[in-house]
Structure formats: C-alpha cells, structure tokens
C-alpha cells in the first residue's frame, strides 16, 4: 500500500505528513517547483510546474500515483485532491482526522460534527483536517529527490495564478496573529470595538468578529472569524460578547486557548472555551487592558 503526500512549505503540510506517516506504510511526497525539507519520507518527487495550477498539480499526483494520496486541509489541498480524484477515478474525503482500514473519520460542520464513513474504490484521497494532528518531525535519512516534468494534457494550465496582488498592510494578518480578540453582537456598535482594538494592539494581536457583526456593518468581512470567514489558530483567542454558535467556533478550533467574556453564565460558548469571565465586556476588556499595562510596567 503506497502513500503519497502533497506538500507545500507550510505548517499544515507538516501536519498532513505526520498523519500520513501514522498510516504505517512507507511515505512518498510530492512538491511542486522546489523541494521541501522533510523527514520520514522515502522519495520526494519534485514536479516541474511553474506556479499554482490545480489541475496540473493533480496531473502530477496522478502520474506518480499511490493507493492513498494525502494533502493538507488547505484551500490548495482540497482543490488539488478533488481534481486528482477525478483524474484517478478515486474517492476523495476532505478534512479527515483518522483512517482505519477502509473507514475514514472526517469533520462536518466545521468540526462540530464528526462523520464515520466507509471509503469505497481506489485510490483513496484524503485532506487532513487542520490543527487536529500535531506536526511532528521525524528523524532518519533525507528522502531521495526525484525531479520530473509531468506529462500535462491540453488545458491543464488553463487555470493558474496569472498575477499576485500584494494587499498586506504591514501588520499581522488575522490568520497568523498570535492573539485574536473577537467581538460579537454583545459589543453593540462599531465604536464599541475600540477597547478591543486597544487590548489587541497592546498584545501584538488583531481584532476579529462574528458574522452578526459583519452583517450589521460594524466591521468588514475580512475580520470575520468562522466557518465561512477566516479560520484562525492563535495562541490565545478572546471571544467577547459572542454566544458561541457552532459556525463561529469552527473558525477558532485551532486556537490553543479560548477565553470567553460574556454576561450570560449559560452562554453556549462556555462549553467550548477554556476560560471564562462573566461580566459586561465594556467593563471587563478595559480592565484587562489596564491590568496588562500594570503587569508590564512592573
């Protein structure tokens, strides 16, 4: 049984690789353009393709082939494996957390529901749910690197990145920030976010929000944390005035620790948070800011 992992130079790929090694078979990897530093891999195939073109990448995977093809649960991972499933005639299961024999465990509802499914047909293509498997490095010999030019069909490069626009404003992005402080309906208004912004900037973090806030027009969709917004994995996630709807919690599952600030001691979010402060966020957040300043001053 062969296992082939699509890798990009990111943390989610290392998580996917860790998952793949856990399947108990020798693991090969495929990278595109440049080799990626990895451990515990037998052969690293490097496909000569210029830039990201999902169908071409899928073609490369299909050409190398394997019984089980694995990728990270990232946008690229899902997209490439879906194409590869069609090319290989295989079955694709997204956001997988475990594979035992022909039974796959995968996530639905952004992680709030777990599905056990039987995967029929071959090959099996799996993307690994982000932040469920901790990335582990493996010792051992470096892989044998084999560079190749995949035989692409007409149209394989029809969809490719034509241009990259740089829109970063220099600050930390929501997806990468170590601390994220989100506000929900409980914040009450656009101005109500000011104390959250103060605390965020003090901690080198970023402000996020729930979907209700976006629809109310208080903050842009780019600040939205959730299943259909940005999925984040900060060290600390503070959710202020957020009730804890599953769609929102799906966006912050990857957070190491979650602190909820809510006036309602029975809010749903308390079942998904590590810590809670019961109170009015308009009072609590400034109090925390003051306490942080005090702690730093001393």
């Amino acid at each position, binding site marked *: 049984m062969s296992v082939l992992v699509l890798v990009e130079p990111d943390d989610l790929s290392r998580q996917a690789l860790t998952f793949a090694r856990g399947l108990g078979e020798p693991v090969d990897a495929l990278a595109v353009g440049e080799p990626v530093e990895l451990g515990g891999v037998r052969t690293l195939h490097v496909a000569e393709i210029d830039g990201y073109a999902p169908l071409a990448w899928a073609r490369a995977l299909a050409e190398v082939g394997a019984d089980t093809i694995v990728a990270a649960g990232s946008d690229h991972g899902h997209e490439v494996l879906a194409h590869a499933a069609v090319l290989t005639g295989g079955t694709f299961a997204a956001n997988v957390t475990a594979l035992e024999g022909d039974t796959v465990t995968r996530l639905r509802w952004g992680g709030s529901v777990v599905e056990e499914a039987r995967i029929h047909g071959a090959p099996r293509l799996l993307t690994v749910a982000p932040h469920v498997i901790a990335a582990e490095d493996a010792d051992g010999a470096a892989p044998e690197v084999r560079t190749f030019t995949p035989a692409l069909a007409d149209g394989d490069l029809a969809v490719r990145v034509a241009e990259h626009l740089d829109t970063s404003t220099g600050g930390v992005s929501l997806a990468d920030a170590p601390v994220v402080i989100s506000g929900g309906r409980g914040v*009450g*208004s656009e101005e109500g976010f000011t104390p959250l912004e103060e605390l965020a900037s003090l901690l080198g973090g970023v402000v996020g929000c729930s979907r209700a806030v976006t*629809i*109310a*027009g*208080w903050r842009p969709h780019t600040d939205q944390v959730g299943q259909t917004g940005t999925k984040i994995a900060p060290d600390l996630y503070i959710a202020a005035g957020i009730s804890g709807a599953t769609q929102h919690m799906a966006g912050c599952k990857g957070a190491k620790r979650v602190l909820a600030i809510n006036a*309602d*001691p*029975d809010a749903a979010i308390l079942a998904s948070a590590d810590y809670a402060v019961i109170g*009015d966020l308009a009072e609590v957040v400034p109090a925390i800011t003051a306490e942080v300043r005090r702690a730093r001053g001393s």
Partner: protein
Amino acid sequence: MIGAIALVAALAVSAAVFARRVSLLVRLLRMGRPTGIDRTDDVPRRLEQEAVVVLGQRKLLHRLLPGLMHAFIFWAFIVLFPAIPMAMIAMVDPDAAPHWGWYEALANVFAVLALVGVAIALVIRKLVRPRRFEGSHLGEADLILAWIAAIVATLLLWHATEAPAWAWAHVLLILGFLAYLPHSKHLHIVTAAINVYFGRTRSRGRLEPLRFDEDVPEEEMRFGIGTVQDLTWKQMMDAFSCTECGRCQDACPAWATGKVLSPKLVIMGVRDHLYEEGPKALAGDYDGPLVAGRDSLEEMAWDCVTCGACVEACPVNIEQVDHILDLRRHLVMVESRFPAEAEPMLRDVERQANPWGKPQGERAAWAEGLGVRVLEPGDPAPEVLYWVGCAASFDERAQESARAVAKLLSAAGVDFAILGPREACNGDPARRIGNEYVFQAYAEQNIATLDDAGVRKIVASCPHCFNTLANEYGDFGGAYEVVHHTELLAELVRDGRLAPAPGEQTITYHDSCYLARHNDVRESPRELAAAVGTPVEMERNRERTFCCGAGGSHMWMEERGRAINEERVRQATETGAETLAVACPFCSVMLDDGVRSSGAQMRVADVATLLSEAVDGDRAD
C-alpha cells in the same frame, strides 16, 4: 345698496377662493388610500371622543394657561358665530340688524375673553417662548392671532358704537379669514373635529395591517408611505389638522434626548410634501420623489420608539406613529434601506423564529426544574396559555420574571402551560421596524399553532407580546382572551389565591408604553406594587409615562444622542425609591442597563419577581 353689493361681492370672492382650495383638499383626500382598519365602527366611543377632546378641550387643558387661552378663543368662535349674519345684515341695512341685548352682552364677554386669550398667547409666544415651538412657523401664528384680535375687536367696537363701518370691517375681516382659512394651519378648525372622530378609540397599539394577498395586483399594493400617492386619507387628515403646537415634540423621548426626531416635524414634513406634490399627483402620470426623501424624515423615522406619547399629547388626535411606521415600512420593504445593525435581527426572526438567533429548541430552558407543562401537539388545551415571549425565553435578565410568573401561577393552582419551542416570535420586532411581511408570516404561524392547540385564553408577561396577541392577531383571524401577567396576578391576589406579605421597600413603578398608553393597563401593576411595598410615583406616570427606549425595535438598533433609558432612570431616582418596578422584559433590561451605567442605587425588578419574593417569604438573589 352699496352695502348689499359689497357684501355679495365679498361673499363671492371669499367663497370662490375658499371653494377652490377646499376642492383641492377634497380631491387630495379622495386620492388618499383606504385605511387598514375600520374607522367607522364603535360610534358611541367616537362621539365620546368628540365631546371630551373637541368640545371639552381636555387634552389642551393639561397645560392650564395655554388650555385656557385656546378654550377662550374656541368658545368665543362658537358664541360669536351668530354675530356674523347680524353684521352682514347691518352692512346691507343697518336698521334691520337685530339687537338682542342679552346676546350682545354675552358676545361682549366672550369677545373680551378671546382678547384675553390672544394676549395670553402672545405672552406665551413672545415672552415665555416654550421649546415646543422650535421648528414651528411662528409668523403664521402671529398673523392669525392678530386677525382674531381684529375680528373680535371690530365686533366689540360695533356693539359699542353701532357705527356700520365696524360691522363692515367685522364682516370683511371674517370673509377674508374664511378665504385664508384653508390655506393655513387654521384649517384645523374644520378638520380637527373630523380627525378626532376617525381616530382610534381603543387598541391604540394596533397598527394598520397591509395586504399582500395573491389576488391584489402589485401596482395596487401598498407597502407603506413611498410617494404622496401612498398616503391614506386619514394620514392626510392628520396633516391638515396639525397646528404645529409642539405638544407631541415635548412629549417625545427621542427629542428629549437630543435626537433628530420630532413628531411635529414629521407631520409638518408630510403636510408640506402633500401640498407640494399632491397637485402634481392629481394631474396624473406621477413619478415623484419619496416622502421620506424630504428634509430629515428618513433619519427621524429611525429614532422613533413607538411609545405613543405624541399621539397621547396631540389635542386633535393626530396619529403620528402611523406616519412614522409607514415611512419605515416603505424603507424596509421596498428600498431595503434601514440601519444595518438591524439586519441580523431581521434575518434571525425570519429564519430562526426569534430575534436573538438562539435555537428554538432551547426556548423552554428557563423553565427547567419548575415543573412547567410544555404543550405538545395533541395535548389537551390548558385553561390559560402562558405566552413567555422571546425576551424572557432567551435573555438571562428577563428569564427571572418568567420563572417568577411560573412559580406564582403554580402556587395559585392555575392550570397553565407554555408552548416551548413551538412558540415563535409574535412578530413585533419585525413589525415595528417596518417589515410587515415577516410579521404576518409569524402571525399566521402562531395563530395556526394556537388554534390547533385549542387555546382560548392567553397570559403574556411581555407588553409587546400582549399588545400584538390582544389587538393585532385579530386582523389575521386569531381571537383570544389575552391578559397581561400583572392583570392575572392582581386578580389572583384579590381572590386570595396568592397571599403576599406586605413589605417596607419603597417602590416606584415604571409604566410600560405598551401597557399604559397603548392598552390602558395602569392599575393592576400598582395593586401588586402596593401589596408588597410602599409605592411612590414618578412625575411622568400612567399614560404620560416616559419610554425606556427599547420600543420600535430599538432594542436592536443603535441609539444616537443621549440615552433614553438613562433619562428615565434619572426620573426614577428623583423619587428616592429603593426599587424600580417594571412589568416588561425590555423595560427591565433597558432600565437595569441605565441603573448600571449611571451608578444609581436602585434595584430593577419585575412586579412578578417582587410578588414571588413576597409570597415565598425570601428574596431570590
């Protein structure tokens, strides 16, 4: 001879000018759309309103000095009326004019009273200068006062000197006034009586429904006030009757807290738009601007909390809330233009059956452990259905009162049940923000649920639910006996089924707008407060209550200017009471917020909670 010619000529000119204008006004009224409720029923009460409000000048006499001023002039007009034909006869043939000494004496007294009235009016307008006149056209009023003074002065002079010249002057001034009348706000002397007759006599909280039936062609459907062609005839009558007196402006909690909204300015805006655009619309093929596009009508519409203080204050029973709501309806339902922060609430009401967006499955969670019967389909109907409402179901502060009500009803042995997850929002948040369509969908759904369950009697602990169930569901086929929880609890106390221990705490009771003003429920909550403590009244109480700020869907909208709830809390603290009692979950949240933000030392609690503690003997913290 000259006199006769002059009289005929003056009459002809005056009548022509008068008739031409009145013809326009009548044509405008006929263009007016029909109203959504029957305004011809309940004749005895309509006549009662005429007697009390028009003849008795009751609303005006709330303020003594302006009330007397107006009453003097009003009664003078009536008493002096016969003097007009007498003066006309004197114009033609001075000797033929009748001279009844007793009448002339009476007329002189009232003429002097009228002059006193004008003098008072001038003192008020020029020296006192009350704020309610901000925005009013004072110049026009001055002209009218001068004219009235001249009319009665010429009469007095005629009676004193018997010189025909004064009779001429009197007649000409009156005929001139007649011609001027329908071009000015003095039109109210004709329209006010009519407007009062057609106003709501009861169920003042019942909005006029719109019809979205399949068989109505879209072009004929009314979605509120878009252009001048969408005004109902009653709204036009309201506009014709406004005297810019500003009593509504004074009563409005939004205006009092520095917001843009003045109900007076809304009616004036509608009136000005009607006079300007109405004739164009009558000419045919009209594609004119929105009424809401005028001045700051759109902005003003969003400040309204639908408390009805303006309607209560208006001496000619103008129904300002209808105008504001109809402006909102068009903005929400046709233009999709409304404060963005209200969109999550509307989406939640529409898709999840409650404005909190919480799962309906958890609607009965507040009742855990209380042994409350949840009515399942097929269960026998209870004697009373307790309609809990979304606020008490999902807001942690409001849940306290629901628990108190449930405990009290159980203690009194009342056979009651709740619908639990099958209780959908009654639709008031959607209706008050202007989304009549979503409201009606929920009205129909809830009525089907209630009728299937065989419910006859409902007790509601939220005045908004109470108002909608009692007054508005009837328009959609739902007919139930609906009481507010304070009414039911007061009855149980009177019957001895609940025995609260009297207490010492000083309690000031805050009247909810939807109870005290829209529905005349004022005394039952006071009975309960008196049974458990020592009551003390705020200055603005009963039908003059000051809103908590949550009405008109403001629970879900941002507030500009100063906070209405803080203003009400300030009024409450002036009484020195320890406890601020309420009978509404919105009032309880808003006033509790107000107490916290102002640092006042007061406990805010529902009367049901206070009663429950007095019946239990201990205080639930």
